[in-house]
């Protein structure tokens, strides 16, 4: 996904004079030739993440379209007040593109992991949040978000689904349950393939999205209306239950049950190893999701 991101942004730098890339060293090499071609439009501030967001806000105030990139903890958490004030409060936009997913940097440890990124951005109004599940979706998402003036967060991951799906505002249905089905499963971004595997023998509707904000409340409500039960399982690659309030709003007009799966909230996982091992520890491998789904849907 990182390579697709760099290729798409380098193309945008060639085509759209409004675009600028703002970095704090990380991935600098991927934009070196653009920096030579487009003086002043690739700005590497050194290891200065507060200035990275502040400078992006200033660029946007002059009418440019900043694309800001780093590891998620250094892009969202460390300069969070800058994200809140230098973009949101100034009423300007930017495209923030993070690396690392929740635990792609599993060997690096907690300092390089940011499973709370989407939940944090959820405290701020007006953010579009996309969690691509395939490199092609990274390209499509950037092509949607770079031309605008809005605030967009694009969360790259080292994990991909086998096939890309359309990037857009609506939930994409992959499997429709029967009228007596147990409910609806929503898979976000790179969680899709394992959700399909985990729910293969369940009578449920499975829907996918890479656009989690704004969340397709209307679409979820319609899918739940057509299902046998108003029971919704959301599987997200970041902090467990991050979208619980969206599901709650979407279904506020009906009695329903919901469960969110994601990165564990109650303890800090102090372990290295592989992303797959972290997924297992959080119950986010196919086996863990299958068990949670059976328990939740009472089958």
């Amino acid at each position: 996904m990182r390579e697709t991101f760099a290729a798409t942004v380098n193309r945008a730098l060639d085509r759209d004079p409004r675009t600028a890339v703002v970095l704090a060293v990380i991935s600098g090499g991927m934009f070196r030739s653009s920096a030579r071609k487009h003086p002043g439009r690739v700005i590497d501030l050194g290891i200065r993440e507060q200035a990275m967001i502040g400078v992006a806000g200033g660029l946007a105030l002059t009418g440019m379209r900043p694309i800001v990139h780093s590891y998620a903890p250094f892009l969202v958490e460390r300069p969070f007040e800058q994200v809140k004030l230098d973009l949101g409060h100034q009423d300007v936009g930017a495209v923030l593109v993070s690396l690392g997913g929740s635990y792609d940097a599993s060997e690096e440890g907690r300092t390089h992991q940011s499973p709370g990124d989407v939940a944090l951005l959820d405290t701020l109004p007006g953010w579009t949040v996309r969690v691509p599940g395939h490199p092609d979706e990274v390209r499509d998402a950037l092509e949607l978000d770079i031309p605008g003036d809005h605030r967009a967060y694009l969360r790259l991951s080292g994990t991909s689904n086998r096939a890309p799906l359309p990037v857009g505002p609506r939930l994409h249905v992959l499997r429709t349950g029967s009228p007596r089905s147990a409910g609806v499963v929503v898979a976000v971004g790179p969680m899709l393939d394992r959700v399909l595997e985990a729910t293969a023998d369940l009578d449920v509707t499975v829907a996918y999205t890479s656009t989690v904000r704004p969340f397709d409340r209307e679409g979820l409500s319609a899918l739940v209306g057509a299902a046998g039960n108003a029971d919704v399982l959301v599987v997200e690659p970041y902090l467990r239950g991050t979208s619980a309030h969206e599901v709650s709003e979407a279904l506020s007009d009906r009695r329903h049950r919901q469960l969110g799966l994601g990165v564990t909230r109650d303890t800090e996982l102090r372990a290295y190893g592989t992303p797959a091992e972290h997924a297992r520890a959080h119950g986010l491998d196919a086996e863990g999701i299958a068990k949670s789904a059976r328990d939740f849907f009472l089958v």
Partner: protein
Amino acid sequence: MTTAATFSRYADLPALIGFMEGDEKHDGASLSTTDALWVLYDRVLDVTPETAEDPARDRFLLSKGHGPTAFYAVLAAKGFLDVPTLRGWTSFGSPLGHHPDRVLVPGAEIGSGSLGHGLPLALGSALGLRAQGIRKADGTEPRVVVLVGDGELDEGSNHEAIAAAARLGADNLTVVVIDNASSQHGWPGGIGRRFEVEGWEAREVNGRDHDALDRAFTRTRDGRPLAVVARVRNGN
């Protein structure tokens, strides 16, 4: 615009500030900026209410957003704000609060209040104007001026921008530091040194002397951003 004609001089600023009441806490800070703000808007900045949306305007960013009565008064004296607007300040429907919001205040380039945000925003603005090659009708490059306080310099975010600005050659950027010795632990060796070692030109002036401020604001064109340290004592 009859009110603007009535309240358009430096001598009118105390009366304009007087229209805003209940700001005792920030009074000293507010007064410390009055002269620098006046000189900037009266003699230095190429921006008027008519050119407030012009991409090639000079930009003034008030980073030290607390104590904004002098800023609002200068904006009113220069016609960006209607004088009667000052009277309702900090009320629910007023565009004017204890910290300015750029979305609400005509003429305010940024919203500020939390310290340490204006300088990085100003650097980004300076780099954005340059990257786009924006020029005024006379061919000159617009400048970006940001006002910070010496206490505000405690915030580390400023130092990220101070270090980056000169390395990136942003000589269209000027920082005015209002030095009323309010920094908790002080700046041994002087504030100007912090900028100089990072490749800025630093000038120190009496923050009440209009001619000296005017001269100090003359921009550099040698790749170095400019820091003007304006020394003031509170309350005089």
